């Protein structure tokens, strides 16, 4: 206790950094965000429910959640695979591939949006192959999913990679010398280790997917009751100066995002516990 007290006094800057951090965070993020709840309360409970349960808005939520969920699922499967290949195998061009994974973080979303839209259009480089199969990608929910797969790609890979690197070879060797098959080692030894991070990566990709706007609006086509996403509904209401309506839609999305954050935090606690147990 005494030591703690002494340490506290040695390093300078507590007041200064506390001041900067809380001020900046409050002015830029917290106070403006609190406006969502103030503004949507102006509608009253009845009005709020009316806005967020109208057919068009409900459909937009459904599209947003479904496409974000499918994209996150695809990214979980392939992200796990890519992380595995990058950690366990060596092959020419590995460094380049590893660097390329972060492209969706670095590339502006609007740029990704127009590139994917023209690529996956009916006569586009990739879209033409889908046209042969009679599948339309651009301007359908499938197109939205493609954009969200692009955006969410790095999340799972980057979270799994370090965990996979830290799994000790000895554990696998022990399992192998005890007669476990490769498949058994993966499902019984490696996969349980990876599960918490895999779920965290999934939730991060999902949360990013529901809110994503820039890459989606180009490829979505934005037809009401068909390919309209929730963030676009907010835009539409804003353009009609329906601030309260826009805010009501935002409030529901924020609640879902907060739930995602809480789940991610719990998952990370779980994975830390997991690590401690395995040590």
């Amino acid at each position: 206790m005494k030591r703690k007290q002494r340490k506290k006094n040695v390093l300078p800057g507590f007041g200064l950094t506390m001041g900067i951090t809380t001020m900046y965070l409050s002015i830029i993020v917290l106070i403006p965000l609190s406006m969502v709840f103030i503004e949507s309360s102006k509608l009253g409970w009845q009005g709020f429910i009316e806005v967020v349960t109208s057919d068009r808005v409900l459909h937009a939520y459904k599209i947003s959640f479904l496409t974000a969920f499918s994209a996150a699922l695809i990214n979980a499967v392939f992200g796990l695979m890519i992380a595995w290949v990058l950690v366990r195998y060596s092959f020419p061009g590995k460094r380049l591939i590893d660097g390329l994974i972060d492209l969706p973080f670095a590339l502006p979303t609007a740029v990704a949006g127009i590139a994917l839209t023209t690529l996956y259009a009916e006569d586009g480089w990739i879209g033409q192959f889908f046209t042969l199969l009679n599948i339309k990608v651009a301007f359908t929910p499938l197109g939205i999913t493609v954009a969200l797969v692009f955006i969410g790609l790095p999340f799972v890979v980057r979270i799994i990679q370090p965990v996979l690197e830290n799994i000790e070879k000895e554990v696998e060797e022990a399992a192998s010398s005890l007669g476990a098959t490769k498949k058994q080692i993966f499902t019984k030894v490696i996969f349980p280790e990876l599960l918490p991070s895999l779920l965290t990566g999934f939730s991060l990709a999902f949360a990013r997917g529901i809110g994503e706007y820039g890459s989606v609006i180009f490829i979505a086509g934005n037809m009401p009751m068909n390919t309209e996403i929730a963030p676009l509904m907010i835009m539409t209401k804003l353009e009609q100066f329906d601030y309260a309506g826009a805010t009501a839609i935002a409030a529901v999305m924020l609640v879902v995002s907060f739930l995602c954050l809480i789940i991610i935090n719990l998952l990370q606690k779980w994975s830390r516990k997991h690590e401690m147990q395995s040590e």
Partner: protein
Amino acid sequence: MATDLVKNEGKHIHKPTAVKKETNWTKRILITVMFLYLSIFLLVPLVYIFVKAFEQGSGVYFAAITNSDALDAIKLTLLVTLITVPLNTVFGIAAAWLITRFQFKGKQLLLSLIELPFAVSPVIAGLVLVLFFGPRGVMGPLFSEFGIKILFSTPGIVIATMFVTLPFVARELIPVMQAQGKAEEEAAISLGASGWQMFVRVTLPNIKWGLLYGMILCNARAIGEFGAVSVISGRIRGMTNTMPLHVEILYNEYQFSAAFAVASLMSLLAILTLTIKAWIEWRAEKQLTA
């Protein structure tokens, strides 16, 4: 015990070769699938941007990136980035210092709040800033009294970008400073260094790579931010058009080559970002092995 191990190893000498053959096959399949997946989703789109940009020749390309609207958009994007990145860097260093060097109540909550902008849709970020700084908002009337316009002008775009990119630097620095520990800084202070001396001579050299990494990520996102800026800018040509918004306008006007030309500039910046990142990681690895 030791002999047991040796025995076990001897027993399995032929088995690993069988396993190896099997993994060779899985290895080949997995690597192929990965290449296909990454090609379709990452490589082809990236190459395609440049192909499209030069589709109508370099004349059209250079005209698209040097006309006055494009130049205005480039200038505004640079201005926004030049304000946003330093401010978020100061915030990031302060927040990381506070969180990794002191014990206080509500630390966990503060950490979650710093990450909050990542969980909020950029469109919602724009919306709340409109509500807050708009004519009907809390701060709007106050600012307009002093003749400062926030919405549909540069300050609004800057604030929206600050909102969206706020966590980047702090997020990179916190784990780095946590791992570093505070012993060196405590030593500097107890040897009589001032707070500033300690920061410049001890803290900064230790965190410089993490700091640089956070800054380039923040920079990339600041250049490319679309949703939040789109809500707050009003999209006035030559006034409040950033590069991504300019791309959108050109695209919606079916000027595809011009849209992709401006997009290719931003893609070059993205490639540069990835290269710097790879270089930082390569350095860190070399330092570890050295």
